[in-house]
């Protein structure tokens, strides 16, 4: 009983991480041209592969988001979401280090930055947000069973 706040926190974490992923996925899925450009500008993949990844990524994010929100496979999905965040942190970090003048493109609006210049604030904000979301994913891995989830609850988490 006294640990019930944990399951509310799990629900909050699921909605937070799921909500961010859903928004990110939806805004990119709406605009495939921008979504692919925002993958290409990180210069991590050859153009053809970047385009395929750009078309698929929004739907992967949407899928992970929906699973988190309804609370299915929370532990596994939290690992995948955390891995995705680490990948994003790496991508943004290397773009910053290489001085690639880009918008993050995390929520659409990707591509080359409007004035063709490097804006350190952009990279820093993205990295800090993704670190925060990685922490949320970590919490969900530790306490996957919260309120209103479709996963079968386990004793320890109730």
């Amino acid at each position, binding site marked *: 009983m006294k640990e019930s706040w944990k399951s509310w926190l799990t629900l909050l974490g699921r909605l937070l991480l799921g909500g961010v992923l859903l928004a990110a996925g939806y805004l990119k*899925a709406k*605009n*495939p*041209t*921008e979504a*692919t*450009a925002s993958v*290409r*500008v990180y210069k991590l993949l050859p*153009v*053809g592969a970047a*385009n*395929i990844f750009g*078309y*698929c990524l*929004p*739907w*992967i994010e*949407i*899928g992970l988001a*929906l*699973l988190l929100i*309804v609370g*299915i496979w929370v532990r596994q999905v939290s690992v995948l979401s955390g891995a995705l965040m680490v990948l994003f942190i790496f991508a943004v970090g290397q773009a910053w280090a290489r001085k690639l003048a*880009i918008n993050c493109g995390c929520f659409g609006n*990707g*591509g*080359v930055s*409007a*004035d*063709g210049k490097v804006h350190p604030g952009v990279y820093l904000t993205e990295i800090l947000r993704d670190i925060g979301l990685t922490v949320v994913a970590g919490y969900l891995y530790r306490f996957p069973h919260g309120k209103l989830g*479709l*996963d*079968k*609850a*386990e*004793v*320890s*988490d*109730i």
Partner: protein
Amino acid sequence: MADKKKKSKHQPVKKQGDAFTRYLVIGMIALIVLAGVGAALAKNHSNSHAPVPASVSKADGYGISLNPTAKVKVDMFEDFRCPNCKNFEAVNNTYVNQLVREGKINAVYHPMSFIAPDSAIAAAAAACAADQGKFLEMHTALYANQPDSSVTPENTAYWTNAQLILLGHSVGITSKTFDTCVNSGKYIPWTKNIAADAAARNINGTPTVIVNGKTLPLATDYDAKAFTKVFTDLGIK
């Protein structure tokens, strides 16, 4: 704490009634993801059967090519609703149009359609104007009449087909074919070909101006002096 965790691994609480709902939800989510990926991969290919406007070739990335025999080739990737493209046009439109009219450059226009919901109908209307030999005029008019992005944000719709037809008439198009072309959305599929080609060419923003295969820095695009110098350096006077 550690104790409890150990225990939980072996004693899941059974909630049999939920199993069906759970699989149903998993199935629906899987369907959404697969359908989304499938549609995204299928829709964003170029379609070789799409009707294309006059003076377009696949080799030029489906761009509208004016003076194809001129030696200096200028590829311009723009979106009719992109405010920075309007800046580029405000600075260089007169000069570029003059070079095209004098036959000094092979201008290849790639009208992109990712900024606003009406970018595609604007691009398609410009293609309809190309069929009437009025591409340059329509192109100029579309930028001259682009809404102020502080009033109409760049990602909200502005143009309607009716307005685009009137705009075409204002630059001297009289043929009914143009009206039909715009209204029927004849060249909307072609705008996807433009996008697919731009993706394959690693075009990551608009405007992108490429002169003889070399992408100009954005700073050059917005600076009339620097932009003109690119062409005078290539022997164009």
